[in-house]
């Protein structure tokens, strides 16, 4: 029934209706999401490295590290959501049909990384963000490459040639 209706409605002339964001600037970059994912790994490592005799200072240091970890988990969610909502289009889904699922899993991992201290979760989050970055560059007609990051995490960064 819906198919019949849509076929009939397709016969109607169409007009453009706008659902625009503030400034369609066209400037998108997956780098910030990668930076944030690396930061989460670094913060989880730092939690295990804190040496403080004074319990007050120990609580203080752990609190500071946790705050940064949580902020960067939110940053991953924000950056990935912007790419998903503003940049990726229907035509990209034809080439990358699992993109929605990948974004969904990435957002869930970011929330999990925010809540806990499981390094494996943080590593999986970074891997997902790297995959999204590769897809992003490919949709731009660029060739993505993985290089060793200069960060203490020693993980990789996805850039393009």
């Amino acid at each position, binding site marked *: 029934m819906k198919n019949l209706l849509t076929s009939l409605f397709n016969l*109607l002339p169409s007009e453009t209706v706008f659902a625009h964001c*503030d400034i369609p600037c066209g400037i998108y970059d997956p780098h910030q999401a990668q930076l944030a994912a690396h930061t989460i790994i670094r913060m989880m490592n730092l939690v295990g490295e804190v040496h403080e005799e004074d319990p007050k200072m120990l609580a203080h240091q752990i609190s500071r590290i946790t705050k940064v970890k949580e902020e960067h988990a939110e940053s991953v969610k924000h950056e990935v959501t912007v790419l998903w909502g503003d940049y990726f289009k229907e035509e990209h889904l034809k080439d990358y049909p699992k993109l929605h699922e990948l974004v969904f899993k990435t957002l869930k991992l970011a929330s999990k990384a925010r809540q806990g201290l499981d390094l494996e979760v943080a590593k999986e989050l970074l891997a997902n963000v790297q995959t999204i970055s590769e897809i992003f560059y490919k949709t731009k007609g660029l060739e993505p490459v993985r290089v060793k990051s200069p960060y203490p995490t020693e993980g990789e960064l996805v850039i393009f040639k």
Partner: protein
Amino acid sequence: VRALPISRFIVSGNSMVPLLSEGKSVVSFNWYYLLSKPKIGDIVVAQVGKRLVVKKISAIRAKEVFLIGEYRDKSTDSRNFGWVKHTQLIGKVILSF
């Protein structure tokens, strides 16, 4: 009020993601608000300046509605262009495909 009861529009932009994404067709029933009052949550096509916009009604006051995008971080809506008069509503979205 448009003479035709039904119009088809193609969505441009992402402020209604995930409900409506770029390139989707939406069909509006243009006589809907002759018979019914606007309700919060209605997806509507409205004339704002020279543009037609598709947004959701988030608040109602006498003869005016407040429209917002579904993806609020990235939407130009009544927070920018203010309250919209009932007479600016083209129709209620009844179908998207």
